[in-house]
Structure formats: C-alpha cells, structure tokens
C-alpha cells in the first residue's frame, strides 16, 4: 500500500508537466463550446460504429419488399428504402464504413507524407526536387477528380476508394512536413544537437519528427471530415462502394429517384454525412486552436 503510494507520487513528480498540460487542455476545451459539441459528435459516432450490431433495430441488408418505402414510424424511425430495408439501421452501419475509410486512409497517408516531407526537407537537393515535383503533379488534380480517375481505373470498390483517396492526400502532408522540417532545421536546438555530435538519424527521429508530426496530426484532424465527404461523393457517383453496402453516399444515390415522393430515403443518409463531417471539422478546429499556444493563451 505504502509502496504503491510512493510509486504514484514519484510518477506524479516526474510527470507533473504533463499533468498540468492536460489540465490546461481540459480548461481550454471547456471554454470552447463548439469544440465540446464536435468532441461529443465524434465520440457518439465512434460509439455508434463500435456498437452498430447491438443498437441497430434491424438488419441493414435484409430486404423486406412488402414494406418498401415506408414513411418514418415507430417501428422504422427513419422509414425504409426501396427494398424495404430500415434506413436507421443502414445509417448506423454506415458509420462503420465511413470511419473505416477515414482511419485507413489517414493511417497510410500520415506516416507516408511525414516521412517523405522530412526526407525532402532535411536532405534537400535532388531528393527534395523529385519528391516535391511528384507532390506538385498529384496536387495539380482536384482531389475528387483524381480519386475518381483512380477509382475508375482500378474498378469501383470500397478498397479502391481508399487507395484512390490515399493517393490524392499524401502530397498535402508531405508539403506541410517539408515546410516544418525546413524551419525546424534552422532552429538553434538542432545546431546544439549537431554540436553535441548527435547523428543525423537521431536528430531526425528525436528532434524533428516529434515537432513535425504534431503539426501534421493537427492538420490531419482537419482533413478527417474531408475524407468522409470525398468517399461519400465517390460512392454517390457510383465509383465507390457498391450495393448492398450500407454506405451513406450510395444510399443518397439510390434514394435520389424517390426525392420528391419519399423524401426521407435520400435525406437522412445525407444528413448523416453532414453531421459526421461537421463533427470532425468542429473537433479539428478546436484541436487546432488548443494546440496553438498563441491562440490558447491570447484569451
């Protein structure tokens, strides 16, 4: 018991800085109601995605043709679609698809972009030239158009959607990481490490990477909503997820023909997209503001 207590207090002593940082972040978050709304939306989305099979009232795939295009009611809160599937259940399961795409795309792009950006920025010369011209070329296409072209070339499917979006997004992170690296490289603490004889690899890993990745991660939180939106757009055009996957964009696309007479069929899935993207954007904005000491401290 006493041992535990001393362990805890020594841990607290060593991490007092982190504890006060955490307190500061909590304090700053509390003062920003929009961030709290965003955070709650995102937490809710994640919970819905995890618990989808347990909380969705019906099977998202099973068809009930006798009950097609039913308007919202107690048994089908958001109505049913043209094949009699419960729209609420499909939206709930759609959360999984949306989050999965987002997580996979960022899990590929963040490390890739940061790695290429740091290499380009730190070493400069022709390495920089090649990486950055590649980035320029990929950035010369509007994202959705390039993703569409890649999606069309690979054939429409969920996996190809992820690959397509991933290919369009790395240049943004690479550029950001390169810019950060260029400015960090000039700062005195890097010169101090050189003076100590620290190797290049260690300077990159222990001094540049932590600073570089935090800015890029902040930027990525601002992009989370974008990924969801682009994926939904591709599916809407028929170049992404294929039926019967419960994907929001696809649901809007198939429900489009019922817009006038059964408005709920395309409207609710679209609203789900808006809500999810809005949540991530609010949270991203909040994280950016809180992570910027200038904004955080200046009231």
């Amino acid at each position: 018991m006493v041992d535990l207590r001393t362990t805890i207090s020594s841990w607290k002593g060593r991490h007092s800085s982190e504890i006060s940082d955490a307190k500061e972040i909590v304090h700053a978050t509390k003062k920003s109601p929009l961030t709290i709304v965003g955070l709650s939306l995102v937490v809710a989305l994640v919970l819905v995605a995890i618990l989808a099979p347990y909380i969705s009232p019906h099977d998202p795939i099973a068809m009930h043709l006798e009950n097609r295009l039913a308007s919202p009611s107690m048994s089908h809160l958001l109505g049913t679609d043209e094949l009699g599937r419960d729209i609420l259940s499909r939206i709930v399961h759609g959360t999984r698809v949306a989050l999965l795409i987002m997580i996979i795309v960022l899990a590929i792009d963040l490390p890739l972009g940061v790695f290429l950006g740091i290499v380009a920025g730190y070493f400069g010369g022709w390495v920089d030239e090649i990486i950055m011209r590649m980035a320029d070329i990929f950035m010369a296409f509007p994202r959705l158009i390039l993703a569409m072209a890649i999606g069309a070339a690979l054939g429409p499917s969920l996996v190809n959607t992820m690959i397509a979006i991933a290919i369009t997004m790395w240049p943004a992170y690479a550029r950001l990481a390169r810019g950060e690296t260029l400015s960090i490289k000039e700062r005195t603490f890097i010169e101090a490490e050189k003076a100590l004889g620290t190797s290049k690899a260690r300077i990159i890993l222990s001094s540049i990477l932590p600073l570089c990745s935090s800015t890029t991660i902040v930027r990525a939180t601002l992009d989370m909503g974008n990924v969801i939106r682009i994926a939904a757009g591709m599916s809407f055009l028929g170049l992404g997820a294929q039926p019967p996957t419960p994907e929001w964009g696809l649901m809007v696309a198939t429900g489009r023909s019922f817009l006038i007479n059964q408005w709920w069929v395309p409207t609710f899935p679209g609203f789900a997209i808006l809500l999810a993207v809005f949540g991530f954007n609010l949270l991203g904005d909040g994280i950016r503001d809180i992570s910027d000491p200038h904004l955080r401290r200046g009231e």
Partner: protein
Amino acid sequence: MNFREYLVKRMALFIVVIIGVVTVTFLLSHVIPADPVGAILGENAPPELVKKTERLLGLHLPLHQQYIRYVKGVVYWDFGIALRTQNPVSKDLRAYFPATLELVTLAMLIAITCGIGLGILSAVKRNKMSDNISRVFSLVGISMPAFWLGLLLILILYYHLGIIPAGGRLSPRISPPLTVTGLYTVDSLIAGEFRTFWDALYHLLGPALVLGWIQTAYICRVTRSSMLEVFNEEYIRTARVKGLREKIVIFRHALKNAAIPVITMVGISFGYLLEGSVLTETVFGYPGLGRYAVNSFLSLDLNAVVGSITLIAICFALSNLIVDLLYRFLDPRIKY
C-alpha cells in the same frame, strides 16, 4: 532573380507539372486497367469486336508507342472519338466546358463577395454573436456534401417553391444564342437576347448556390483567420497609434496584407469548384464538363475520360500559376 527570371522558372515548373499530369493520366487509363476493352464490351464480346475496339483505342501497340501516340494526341488536342457520344472528344469538350466555366465563374463571384465580406465581419467582431453565426455557417458549408445540398435545393426550391428550374442550361422553348464564347449568359448579351440571358441565369441559380455556399465557407474561414493574424501585427498598432479611423485600419492596412493568403485560397478554391461541379452538375442534370466526365467514367469511355481529366488538370494548374504570379505582384517583400 528579377520578375522575368521568376516567370521563366515558374513556367518551367508549369510544364513539368503538365507533363506529369499527362503521364499520370496515361498510367491511369492505359497501364493500370487490366482489361479495358473487356470492361467496355463485357466478357462475352465477339473477338472481332474486341480486336476492332482495341485498334480504335490503339491498345494493340506496345506501351511506349501507345504513350507517344497518346502524347501526340494531347499536343494536337485530339483525344480520338468518344465511344459514348460518337463525337470527337475535343468537340465534346468544346461544347461542355463553357457551361462549367460559366457555372464556376458565377459561383466564384458569389463566394468571393460573400466570403471575404463575412470573413472581415467575423474577424472584426471576433467572439461576438455575428462572428459565431458566421463561423457556424461556414463550418456547415465546408462540411456539406455538395450532392446532398443539391438534392435539398431541388426538393425545396424547385418542387415546393418553384424558384429554380429542374435542370438543364436553358428552357426547352428557348434556343441557345449564337456561339461566340460558349458562355450562354455572355453570348446572349452579345446577341442582345435578354430573355435568353435571364433564362440562362435562372438555370445557373441552383448549382451556383450550392457551389457558392461551399466556396463562401472556405474563403470566409481563410479571410477570418488571416485578418486575425494581421490584427496582431505591429504595423496595425502603428496605424492605431497614428489615430487612423478604424475603417482605414481595416481596409487599407489590414486587408491588403490579409489578402495574400486569401488569394491563394481563391486559387485552390478553383480546384474545389471543379470537383464540386462534378457532383452538382450530376445532381442538377446540368450539361457541363463535370457531368460529361462522370458519365464517361461510368461507361468506361477511355478517350473521353482522358480528355476531360486532362482539361480539368490543365485548368487547375493554370489557376495555380496565375495565383503564384499574382501573389508576387501583391507582396513587395518577396525577393525573387
């Protein structure tokens, strides 16, 4: 480096990017797809037809010859025949591109006026009610799926209120004006046909509102944060110390500096607008380049796909080029 040297360097980059774009497009259209002809004709197509289509598309040649043929095509602006429309692709592009240009320009005008205005208001009234409203408005804007917003507008503005038409570029009874620029609004004014002008504008309204709102949101955000940043600068303090009126401080001292990132954003916006136009045109049935591209993608019409994305990418690269040059023009600090 003086301006001319910079111009040369920037043009060189532009050419590198265009060559890259053309190459990427080639890879996407000719190398990655395993069996393009099979994809077009289906698996059980008769072998003669397969052969014929392959010949038509040049797929029987070795890859490097295909590439040369392809690059030649781009240089002479000849992408071959679009399988879907049976027209030369370049003719289709000429027909559809002005429609999109018209739409994008109108949306951009809406976005620049509203976005910069709202952004300034938001920054000046920081943390006040009007700031919060405009922030939420623009956050909703950047979160909005364009295709869904389009559907909502059709449901409400067309079906329930009847303010906008169902789709198309002109009403069926009205014939297009004599082609000068291809932009119906401009051509009708040149021809003096005001009824056609109003009708064309009326058809632009729905899609332009969708694109305009989303773009307003982006520009508003950049303007706001850029203005706030400039407000912290020492020279704004100097302007206040000089006793200048707030209006002069904001418009003469702050806005001129804040404009630089805003212009970059407007340039990037052009790309967002092009991709937004793909979705919006599809929803509104507006016969523009975006819808043409989507339909070509869906029917795997190789030549048309290549033509439309090459054109879009060139437009985008061109707008980036213009922004870069403008940027240097506006900021006297940049030493080439």
